[in-house]
């Protein structure tokens, strides 16, 4: 009974949410920018409560410019303007110029030399970093004080994170890198895992954004794994890349470009896999909910209301899958990073299994 009531409550919650969205959009052209929901923004979207504009930091012509928000930039700056306002008159609401695209360009229409403004993905990346700090610094203090070091771990908090830490150390780092050097890379793998996990989970929260659905963020992570494989690579690794041992000489020449391409496809695949998985989940949820509005357009609002529960249930299902995928993708990224690092640092000289 209790579960049934909870279920009804969830359906009601979703239905009201959809009603609010449909009301909010009914004034416009019933148009929702689907990709816009996934990409990075210069504001935090807490619709329908508020939209918080984020600071803008721009470097151009040898000087730094700092603005509290995009609106303040548009109203005070003489050097920069919105890309939409270069050729057209700016939109003014209540005596202030409001941003149109948030895409800041110089007044001559050229992009600034370097725009390192704070964005929504960055904010959630930082939140993930702070959450990690708030979790793991107290955890390490516990260990330093003796709980878990000289006694068993106590409490759900410590047990949960110890399980994950031990899992990453033993089943990911030790398994893939080997007993000789795994300790060197365990901190990196732990950081990557929990960073990705928390960023993925933020995408599941109301108004939350998963920063891993941004190819820039995943590219940085993949780049770091790539750097680790290149910096700590063994002599044997380079030999395998440029002069593959144990095969005839003509094959060696064929394998060289293949291996060279392989160097870069590995981190590229890492980057794309994580990004695509996280972005697609979000797009899928919006698409499923969007089906209600498509039905409303095609068959009238009565049919749309009548069938909406199907799409809401499907969305719920996809949401649960997304929760699972959040975990799996963090795990996959970490285990593949460990695997690539393991391949590059291991010394095959003692085993000729090729």
């Amino acid at each position, binding site marked *: 009974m209790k579960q049934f009531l909870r279920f009804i409550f969830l359906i009601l919650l979703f239905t009201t949410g959809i009603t609010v969205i449909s009301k909010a959009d009914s004034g416009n*052209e019933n*148009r929702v*920018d689907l*990709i*816009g929901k*996934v*990409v*990075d923004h210069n504001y935090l979207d807490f619709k329908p409560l508020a939209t918080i504009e984020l600071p803008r*930091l721009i470097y151009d012509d040898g000087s730094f410019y700092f603005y509290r928000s995009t609106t303040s930039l548009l109203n005070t700056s003489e050097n920069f303007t919105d*890309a*939409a306002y270069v050729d057209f008159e700016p*939109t003014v609401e209540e005596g202030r110029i409001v941003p*149109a*695209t948030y*895409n800041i360009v110089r007044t001559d229409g050229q992009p600034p030399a*370097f*725009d*390192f*403004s*704070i*964005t929504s*993905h*960055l904010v959630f*990346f*930082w939140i993930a*970093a702070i959450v*990690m*700090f708030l979790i*793991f*610094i107290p*955890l*390490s*203090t516990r*260990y*330093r004080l003796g709980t*878990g*070091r*000289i006694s068993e771990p106590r409490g759900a908090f410590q047990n949960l994170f*110890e399980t994950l*830490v*031990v899992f990453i*150390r033993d089943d990911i780092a030790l398994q893939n890198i080997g007993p000789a050097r795994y*300790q060197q890379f*365990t*901190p*990196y793998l*732990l*950081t990557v895992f929990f*960073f990705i996990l928390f960023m993925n989970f933020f995408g599941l929260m109301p108004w939350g954004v998963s*920063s891993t659905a*941004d*190819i*820039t*963020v995943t*590219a*940085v*992570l993949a*780049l*770091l794994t790539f750097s680790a494989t290149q910096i700590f690579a063994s002599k044997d690794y380079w030999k395998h890349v440029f002069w593959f041992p144990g095969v005839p000489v003509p094959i060696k020449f064929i394998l060289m470009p293949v291996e060279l391409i392989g160097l870069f496809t590995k981190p590229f695949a890492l980057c794309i896999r994580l990004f695509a998985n996280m*972005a697609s989940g979000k797009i899928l949820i919006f698409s499923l909910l969007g089906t209600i509005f498509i039905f409303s357009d095609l068959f009238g609002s009565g049919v749309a209301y009548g069938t909406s529960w199907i799409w809401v249930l499907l969305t719920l299902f996809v949401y649960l899958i997304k929760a699972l995928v959040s975990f799996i993708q963090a795990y996959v990224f970490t285990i593949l990073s460990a695997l690539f690092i393991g391949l590059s640092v291991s010394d095959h000289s003692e085993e000729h299994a090729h």
Partner: protein
Amino acid sequence: MNPVYAQGLLDVDFGLFFWVLITFLLFLFLLSKFAWKPILNALGEREKVIKESLEAAEKAKSEAEQISRDNEKALKEAESISQKIRKEALKEAETLRADRIEKAKVESEKFLNQARSSIEQEKKQALIELREEVSRLAIGAAARILDEELDEKRNRKIVDRYIKELN
């Protein structure tokens, strides 16, 4: 109407790239130093302690087993030794007794022999004395009979010869 310029999904934003890289490296450093290192060290230490205590327990167990085995062995040895000692003692006592008996036998034999020989001696002596006495008595008697017809010396000779013939 606000124009919607959807940002490309695959655009790499270098501002974000810069921030994410800096933040990640900073947090990687901070977390490694202040979180992962103490946690991993503590875990390693704990695992080491557990491993060592398990090994110590195993060692103590095997030692105890060894000791109990040793004890049993020592007990068995002591038992067999005591058995041996008892047997030996019994044997020795037996030999000693046999020895004593033998000795006593020999001793008594010796005494007996001595007594016999001394009796023999006495007997011989007595016989000699008796003969002498007899011969003296015979001579005396004969002298009385013959009435001193014969002189002492010649009679003596006759008697001696007679006695010799007797022997």
